[in-house]
């Protein structure tokens, strides 16, 4: 039997750039490095306007455990520390650096001898100092994931190369181009958490990457490589764990470690390897620039902080009918108002849709076809939750499990009535969370 999870959809794949080798972007003249690019507390800025910084030099000091620093991705002068457009949709504190052309490397970046024998503490320390946050999109600080409590041992490390979002191929290219580093990183992850098994999982639309990884993994008995059928959202953490191990992560606040699993994106794995071996911080990443709205879709290796406009320019520029700019894939990506926003740690791709692809259709009443129910990968009744959310009957929405929605968008995608189901559910979730916070405040007051 094919390993998979229940539910899910099959949006068209549009992997236009699967066969294109990643090109390195020329050094940007100006980078905009948001102070917070992860889930958790932002760090304190430790540079000031006018300072000279080198490549890889930390710009912030983490504040607390769930926090990571950010680093200069080019060498140059700090032009400004202030707010700037951010892919999340509003202006956020950002360090602006203008290049000086020196390309000087920060002193801390050098090879650690005996990195293969690094202790779990050392691995976590270096990963945190390198500013690693999950590169699949959610951007959760990596060292936190590498620190499971003693009562929740992790037996299986899953390396997520599913890349189930249409259009995106950055993980695919990374797996093809750096299979050995990927496996070294995975071994370090397993070492940090004491896991006895590593599964590298990808969808079966990437057979070339599968072969490459399989070959690279031959001498590692811990590592197995698995191909899963193409289905969205195969790359969602809980669905991936379920497909590979049959385990179900409990509803929030349940975490993969509750079922003995740890999931890391393939990009994060390579970054972990570089951090542990070279103390190299996360200052660049693979980014796919693609979609019907760009002239020449490409895979790029771009410095964190490079404005989207420069990447789109590298992809031949916009087509005349470009209408929508997304960070991430079309299923869960964030629509951007302007292309002045910079590449951040979670930017797996930039998708530009043309006018026709950006059409969403008019919302019609639910006809009760039940498609959203059969595709929901967490077995909710999306249409009912959406309806209760629209009616602001949040108690009812919560009773049906609104806050367990993973917001994959499968329901909205499949709905023949073009209802914005997940959008309504998000509204319900946010309202429920706000009400909870209020209640909590009342209790503590």
């Amino acid at each position: 039997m094919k390993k998979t999870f229940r539910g899910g959809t099959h949006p068209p794949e549009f992997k236009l750039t699967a066969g294109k080798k990643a090109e390195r972007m020329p050094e940007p003249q100006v980078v905009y490095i948001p102070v917070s690019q992860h889930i958790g507390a932002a760090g304190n800025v430790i540079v000031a306007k006018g300072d000279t910084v080198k490549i890889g030099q930390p710009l912030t000091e983490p504040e607390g455990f769930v926090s990571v620093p950010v680093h200069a991705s080019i060498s140059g002068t700090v032009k400004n520390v202030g707010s700037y457009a951010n892919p999340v949709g509003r202006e956020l504190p950002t360090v602006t650096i203008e290049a000086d052309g020196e390309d000087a490397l920060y002193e801390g970046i050098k090879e650690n001898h005996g990195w293969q024998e690094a202790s779990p503490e050392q691995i976590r320390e270096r990963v945190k100092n390198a500013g690693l946050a999950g590169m699949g999109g959610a951007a959760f600080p990596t060292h936190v994931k590498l620190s499971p409590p003693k009562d929740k041992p992790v037996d299986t490390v899953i390396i997520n190369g599913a890349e189930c979002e249409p259009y995106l191929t950055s993980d695919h290219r990374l797996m093809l181009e750096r299979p050995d580093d990927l496996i070294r990183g995975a071994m370090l992850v397993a070492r940090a958490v004491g896991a006895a098994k590593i599964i590298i999982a990808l969808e079966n639309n990437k057979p070339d990457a599968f072969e490459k990884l399989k070959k690279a993994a031959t001498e590692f008995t811990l590592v197995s490589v698995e191909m899963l059928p193409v289905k969205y959202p195969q790359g969602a953490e809980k669905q991936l764990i379920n497909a590979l191990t049959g385990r179900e992560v409990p509803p929030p606040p349940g975490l993969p470690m509750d079922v003995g699993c740890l999931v890391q994106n393939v990009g994060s794995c390579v970054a972990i390897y570089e951090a542990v071996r070279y103390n190299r911080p996360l200052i660049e990443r693979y980014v796919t620039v693609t979609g019907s709205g760009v002239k020449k879709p490409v895979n790029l290796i771009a410095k964190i902080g490079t404005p989207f406009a420069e990447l789109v320019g590298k992809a031949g520029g916009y087509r005349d009918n470009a209408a929508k700019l997304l960070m991430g894939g079309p299923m869960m990506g964030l629509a951007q108002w302007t292309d002045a926003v910079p590449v951040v740690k979670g930017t797996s791709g930039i998708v530009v849709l043309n006018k026709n692809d950006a059409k969403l259709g008019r919302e019609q009443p639910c006809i009760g076809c039940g498609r959203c129910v059969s595709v929901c990968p967490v077995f909710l009744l999306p249409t009912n939750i959406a309806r209760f959310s629209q009616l602001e009957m949040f108690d009812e929405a919560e009773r049906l499990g609104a806050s367990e929605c993973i917001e994959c968008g499968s329901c909205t995608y499949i709905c023949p009535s073009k209802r914005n189901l997940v959008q309504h559910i998000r509204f319900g979730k946010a309202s429920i969370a706000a009400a909870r916070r209020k209640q909590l405040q009342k209790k503590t007051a």
Partner: protein
Amino acid sequence: METPKDTAPQPEGGEAPDKPAAPAEKRPEAAPEAAAAKPLPRRFTLSSSPHLRDVESVSRIMITVTLTLVPAALGATWVFGLRALWLILLGALAAVFTEWLIERVFGMKTTIGDASALLTGVLVSFNIPPGVPWWIPVVGSVFAIGIAKMPFGGLGWNPMNPALAGRAFLLASWPLHMTKDWLPAFWWKRGGFSFFAWRVNPQSILVDGVSFATPLEAHKTALKTVWDQANLPVNIVSQALDQLHNTGQQVVDLAVGTVGGCIGETSALLLLVGAAYLFYKNYIDWRTPFSFIGVVALGGWMFGGSELFGGDVLFHIFAGGLILGAFYMATDMVTTPITKKGHLIFGAGAGVLTILIRLVGGYPEGVSYAILLMNLLTPLIDRWTVPRRFGHDPKKAAAVAARGV
């Protein structure tokens, strides 16, 4: 592209044609000088993810379902003459017009484009005998749309299948037309008629000198006779037993559709051709029709014969409106449950009610009332069959479901 623009050409790739009246942009503080130098960044459409939609749409579903009924409609026309086609078209037209008129009168946006009214109209006509006067499908469709659908809010909000509600209304109001206006197969080949004949008095077309009955009517009469045999003459009882036992040829006729019955329900095979396509397109879930037909088959086998487990299963499957009901009415998306377990319960419940009405109820056929009753239970079924959520303990989830939350 083809039409030359009378305005100055836009610079290639750079600045989007922004409206000059747009409010002043809030520039990031970080780069005021850069902003002055560079053209304004392009502006893009904003929306919350996902940014992709499936090609499937309501109108596409409704039109496809209607098209899958075309083979059965053509089959009915061949068996019952051109009159059947006219009745189908009248019903369809009346339904679409009613919806358009109501929306027009109330100043609403017209929704006839979603083709759901068209489908309802066709289904109303499929559920009436072929010998009825022209106004029967029209009245049925007007009721279906004007009473059973639009007052509840239109498509998606009607609690009952509008086509079946229309049929129930006709059956209650003009029982004679609805239960006696049968036409025998190929009546139009008889003397005095032609394929194009419109005027026909069903009561005057007799088969072998006895009043014409549909197979299910004959079956019910025979069954009643056998059950009451103590009080009846022997020859009548043995005739009834023959009727019950010799259903072989009848089943073939039923499957092909060369028997008396409602316009659209007679040819089981042609309906199944359409239904197969709906399965292929994933428009209908297998659970409803299979549990529905399964329960009817089981009930017919157990109680539909002269002795227990002596009934003819195939007869009960192919006779009457079961195929049409199970594949086209009980699978109506709006009025049936949305959960998978709900589909099973809906189908099984409709099956039990159908066999009850067929064997002991007042009507020879019970498919439409069975579905209507189950339609009304749909909200409850959906409440009882909330699926176990991902990551929840199956046992606890079952307990919660049992409480009916």
